[in-house]
Structures are given as structure tokens and as C-alpha cells.
């Protein structure tokens, strides 16, 4: 029972760090921390076998999202030639 409390505390702390950080590049690692903590909450919340599939889907989706934001902010793919 203590594990889900730790995950919730980490999620709120990382979200506050994201909000009060002014540099966009420094926001993105804490966005990943929020995603990991929410994945932990989802996996621990409901004792059902499909819950782990939902947690895995959320993990993949949120990591893809934050990496897409980081890649676009850094300039995207360079057009050579």
C-alpha cells in the first residue's frame, strides 16, 4: 500500500517541478518522471490481469509523446542535399 503513495507523491512533485521550471528543455525529463509515476499508479491501482496491458500502453504512448515534443523542439530532422 505504501508503493502507490510513493508513486503519487513523485507524480505531484515532478508535475510541480515541470510547472515552475522556465526552461523548456529542462521541463522534458520531469515530464518523463510524471509518466513513469502515473504508470506505477495504474499498475498498482486495480488487481486485474488486463491492468498491466493498460499500463504498458500508457507507458509506450506517453514516452512517444514526450520524445516527439523534445525532437520537434530541438529542430526535427535536418533536410540534407
Amino acid at each position: 500500500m505504501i508503493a502507490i503513495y510513493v508513486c503519487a507523491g513523485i507524480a505531484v512533485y515532478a508535475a510541480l517541478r515541470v510547472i515552475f521550471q522556465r526552461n523548456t528543455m529542462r521541463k522534458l525529463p520531469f515530464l518523463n518522471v510524471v509518466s513513469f509515476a502515473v504508470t506505477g499508479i495504474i499498475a498498482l491501482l486495480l488487481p486485474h490481469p488486463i491492468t498491466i496491458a493498460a499500463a504498458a500502453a500508457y507507458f509506450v504512448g506517453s514516452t512517444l509523446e514526450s520524445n516527439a515534443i523534445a525532437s520537434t523542439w530541438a529542430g526535427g530532422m535536418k533536410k540534407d542535399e
Partner: protein
Amino acid sequence: MNEFVLVACTILVLIGTAAAMLERDPFNKLISLSIMISGIFPFIIDRGFLDVAIATALIAPLSTIFILMVCRRMPA
């Protein structure tokens, strides 16, 4: 869901919404929207709608990627 986790997820939704309203930069707005969507997932899971949660987890990043195509930074 007990009270501590409920309050934590509510805080995530509220500060994500407030930051999405107050930010000026489009990338910071997208980051705040991502925090808001993170906050609603434990509420969907808590009711037992696991298929809805899986579909939402796969569709929400696609919408973010479509918005990112619009707000790409211009080369300096």
C-alpha cells in the same frame, strides 16, 4: 481509490489545466496538456474501463503529434 491517490491525481489535472491556460509558448502548452492527460488516467482505470484506457493511451499521443506538425519551429 483511496483519498491520497485521488487528491494527487486531482492536483495533476488542476495544475495541468491552469498551466495550459497561462503558458504562452506552444511547446509549454503541449507539455501542460500532457500532464493533464496523465492525471485523468487513474480515474478511468479505477472504474474498470481498461479498454477505454488502452484506446486513450494510444490515441492521445497521436493528437499531440498532429499538433506538433503545425507548431514546428521555423529555421533561424
